[in-house]
């Protein structure tokens, strides 16, 4: 079979098939869909962070339009458990029951003919509650005497983890030791399309059909069936076009459960569309980390050990399915990064606070951990008087050591980490930056190197014991009577261009033109079970599954084709949309094979596979511990010492995602992630006050990077195939979002090195930069 690229297959920068509808405004998102008789839902949400809910008085005359948890007793609480020892599981009621645990927590669902009228109802409800002291500082949440969010717990923490390598002897032998206290701010993922749910009951099928903007339709189906006490067959989840996910839509929503139950109860379609205020103040948050980190190195900069105490603010509940600990509990395993680290002592805590629950945002824990490790490395380099490049080269895992098993047991599949770094440095004119610095200019050069585990499967996730452990990814392929190849997968696409890249995979195996490949996604009634799109897994897992299913289908096509050519199976190959004789003349098109199976079965050869031209095949890499893409980011930043403003003069990324299925789409993923990482580095912050009130309620307060804030990034690829995947592809969807905070702050700190100032907290706003400068000057004075 043809495995090479023909201009349409794996490796081709094919333009996207899905663009056509988006460019004329014909994408179809949840908010674009209506049903006859549909009612709109607005949620009454808590104005306070921590309180005992005493009474809700419904607006007179509208009692039947307002639903509290007492009106919907059928819905079970959401429990996202974990098998990690010591994990405290939260019971999350879909509407507040007895207690309120964060601002924005839903208390009642209000239903009317329009959203505005539903909001009027929510506004007319009277809420009686007794305030409790709010827990909003994650570093103090666990302390004795702090009010407990979940009163049967012994402390406000979902989980603590420990790794206890002995680092006590390092002080005596190290040439350098640095300790830093670092902080990253709480963020909102802020996809441009908010969440949205449309639920309708089909009395004929006795099925609840929930159209929802989700990254994981099948997980939502199972979770919804569990919580509503329905058979899985009574639930169908449709996820239409999704206006950005980034992790924000990788969750079973309380709102999904409420809407589904309301549709069952009322026998009418109901819809809820999250508005931006809800998204910013009530939707899940992410990435609020606190580190106290110490690192030791010898005189050459080789790391001797790292000690780290990390706290992640996990909010009030454990979200389904990923849980409250995916960030904190990964700190210890991600800290070694791409380096050959000999010793690690690490304590982590997932703090429980009166804030919305966290979700894993693109990069998950890596963005914060990379920031902690990379800024600490630069501090070590400054102390040793060696360059940022030198200290990384002294520690990066060498290409000849691949595959490399690091001290925490992660296995790096392939690559040349030092080469990526060297290329990134070579792309920047470092001497000219040093010359400008010598003239007193506050300009700096910053680096970050990291690797990203992606598409990790069963062997990794079973240890977490979360509600869903990914197994074999499946794809269904069918050759239609007209020769069109239909491919159905359970992952979903929300900007990743899978309608194109998976068609390229199918083309590579079967030679069918991508225009004749129809990719079906986002509907549990039409696609095989999948845990969905998250963890940079789709290109590896769905790509592998589609390839495997096409191979098996190709074999059946070849057998029928051989019969039509009056030769035997070994005499033919499938190539370019035809079954061709290997020797001699003769071919039959795949479309003719399809016609024969469906419309002229009298011509089928004897002994044909009765399964016909439909195949479901599964795929999982072996080993399934995940691919490791990696990158080096190099940044030139200029700091205005008067205003604290930071300008990114240059940004270079050298990235290795293994074999790229569609290089244009991969560039898009890296660049998009990068803009989000720049947001983390310089702009995005959801502050909470001491009462647990969110202080950024609009996009004028919560600053997302715009086109003028993101430089024209220079992107270079290396393509070291993963030895473990179908085409050598690696997961790379999150990579761009990991490195920017580290590289940018390292550049800022390089610019401020002559003053002796260091930025420690993200985002590096003008205020924080000025504070760092002032602190350094005060220290010197």
């Amino acid at each position, binding site marked *: 079979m043809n495995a090479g690229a023909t201009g349409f297959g794996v490796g081709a920068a094919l*333009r*996207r098939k*899905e*663009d*056509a*509808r*988006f*460019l*004329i*405004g*014909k*994408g*179809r*998102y949840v*908010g*674009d869909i209506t049903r006859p008789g549909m009612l709109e839902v607005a949620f009454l949400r808590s104005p306070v962070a921590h309180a005992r809910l005493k009474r809700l008085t419904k607006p007179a005359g509208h009692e039947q339009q307002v639903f509290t948890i007492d009106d919907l007793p059928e819905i079970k609480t959401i429990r996202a458990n974990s098998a990690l020892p010591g994990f405290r599981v939260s019971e999350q009621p879909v509407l507040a029951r007895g207690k309120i645990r964060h601002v924005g927590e839903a208390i009642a669902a209000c239903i009317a003919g329009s959203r*505005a009228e539903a909001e009027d109802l929510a506004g007319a409800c009277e809420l009686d509650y007794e305030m409790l002291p709010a827990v909003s500082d994650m570093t103090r949440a666990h302390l004795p005497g702090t009010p407990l969010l979940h009163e049967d717990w012994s402390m406000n923490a979902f989980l603590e983890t420990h790794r206890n390598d002995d680092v006590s002897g390092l002080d005596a032998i190290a040439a350098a030791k640095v300790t830093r206290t670092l902080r990253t701010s709480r963020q909102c993922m*802020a*996809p*441009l*399309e908010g969440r949205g749910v449309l639920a309708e009951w089909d009395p004929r099928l006795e099925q609840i059909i929930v159209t929802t903007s989700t990254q994981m339709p099948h997980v939502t189906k199972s979770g919804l069936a569990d919580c509503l006490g329905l058979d899985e067959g009574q639930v169908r989840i449709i996820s239409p*076009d*999704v*206006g*950005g996910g*980034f992790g924000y839509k990788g969750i079973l929503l309380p709102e999904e459960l409420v809407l589904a139950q309301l549709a069952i109860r009322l026998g009418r379609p109901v819809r809820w569309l999250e*508005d*931006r205020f809800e998204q910013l103040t009530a939707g899940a948050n992410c990435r609020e980390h606190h580190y106290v980190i110490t690192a030791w190195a010898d005189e050459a900069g080789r790391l001797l050990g790292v000690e780290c105490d990390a706290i992640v603010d996990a909010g009030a509940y454990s979200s389904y399915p990923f849980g409250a600990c995916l960030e904190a509990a990964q700190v210890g395993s991600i800290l070694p990064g791409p380096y050959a680290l000999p010793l690690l002592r690490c304590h982590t805590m997932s703090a429980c606070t009166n804030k919305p629950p966290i979700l894993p945002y693109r990069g998950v824990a890596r963005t914060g951990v990379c920031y902690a490790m990379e800024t600490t490395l630069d501090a070590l380099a400054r102390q040793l008087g060696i360059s940022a490049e030198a200290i990384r080269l002294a520690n990066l895992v060498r290409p000849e050591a691949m595959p490399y098993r690091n001290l925490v047991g992660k296995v790096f599949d392939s690559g040349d980490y030092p080469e990526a770094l060297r290329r990134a440095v070579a792309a920047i004119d470092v001497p000219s930056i040093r010359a400008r610095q010598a003239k007193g200019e506050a300009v700096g050069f910053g680096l970050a190197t990291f690797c990203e585990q992606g598409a990790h499967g069963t062997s990794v996730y079973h240890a977490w014991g979360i509600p869903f452990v990914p197994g074999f990814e499946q794809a269904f392929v069918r050759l239609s009577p007209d020769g069109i190849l239909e491919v159905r997968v359970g992952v979903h696409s*929300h*900007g*990743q*261009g899978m309608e194109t890249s998976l068609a390229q995979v199918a083309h590579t195996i079967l030679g069918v033109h991508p225009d004749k490949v129809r990719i079906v996604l986002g509907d549990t009634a039409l696609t095989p079970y999948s845990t969905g799109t998250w963890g940079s897994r789709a290109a590896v897992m769905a790509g592998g599954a589609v390839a495997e299913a096409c191979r098996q289908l190709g074999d059946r096509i070849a057998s029928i084709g051989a019969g039509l050519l009056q030769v035997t199976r070994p005499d033919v190959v499938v190539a370019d949309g035809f079954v061709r004789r290997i020797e001699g003349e003769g071919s039959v098109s795949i479309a003719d094979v399809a016609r024969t199976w469906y419309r002229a079965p009298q011509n089928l050869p004897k002994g044909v596979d009765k399964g016909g031209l439909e195949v479901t095949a599964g795929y999982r890499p072996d080993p399934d511990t995940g691919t490791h893409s990696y990158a080096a980011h190099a940044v030139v930043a200029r700091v205005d010492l008067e205003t604290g403003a930071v300008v990114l003069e240059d940004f270079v990324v050298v990235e290795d995602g293994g074999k790229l299925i569609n290089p*244009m*789409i991969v*560039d*898009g993923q890296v*660049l*998009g*992630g*990068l*803009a*989000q990482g720049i947001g983390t580095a310089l702009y995005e912050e959801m502050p909470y006050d001491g009462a647990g009130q969110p202080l950024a309620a*609009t*996009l*004028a307060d919560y600053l*997302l990077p*715009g*086109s*003028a*804030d*993101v430089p*024209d*990034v220079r992107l270079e690829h290396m393509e070291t195939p993963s030895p473990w995947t179908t085409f050598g592809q690696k997961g790379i969807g999150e990579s*761009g979002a990991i490195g920017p905070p580290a590289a940018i702050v390292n550049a800022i700190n390089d610019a401020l090195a002559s003053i002796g100032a260091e930025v420690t907290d993200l985002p590096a706003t003008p205020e924080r930069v000025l504070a760092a400068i002032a602190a350094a000057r005060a220290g010197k004075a």
Partner: protein
Amino acid sequence: MSRIDITLTVNGEPRELKVEPRDQLADVLRGPLMLTGTHVGCEHGVCGACTIEIDGAPARSCIAHAGSCDGATIRTIEGFGDDEIMRALREAFTREHALQCGYCTPGMLVVGRDVVRRLPDADEARVREEMSGNLCRCTGYRGIVRAIVSVIVARRHARREGACR
């Protein structure tokens, strides 16, 4: 609630509507007129996803009261079928991978077309500045900026060639 009678010309067709005082133009376009290509991103005029043309100029339909638009000429993403600049922009957007999830795309195209028309000599920095009122969470903007710049450059070349003839 009392309703307001308004007449709009939407994508070339006269439309008579009864709207509530609190209805925003985006709600009217997406609801009764079923023009769902206009996307609502923030409902407070920051993200730009809902940008349409009112009387020939880009405007945020999420903060334009429908009742105050009586007599206005409206053009949405569905109304640029034969427009030469829009055709060139759409081609450039797909070539430069200027869209991923597609949610910001209609607003980007409407504003991008205005930039192309208004600023025939804009360079990359100017385009970045002009587009900074439209947020995209997926692409990192490089494709969007390159696409718009490429159309400006192509038109500049065409203009010069025309002048030489």
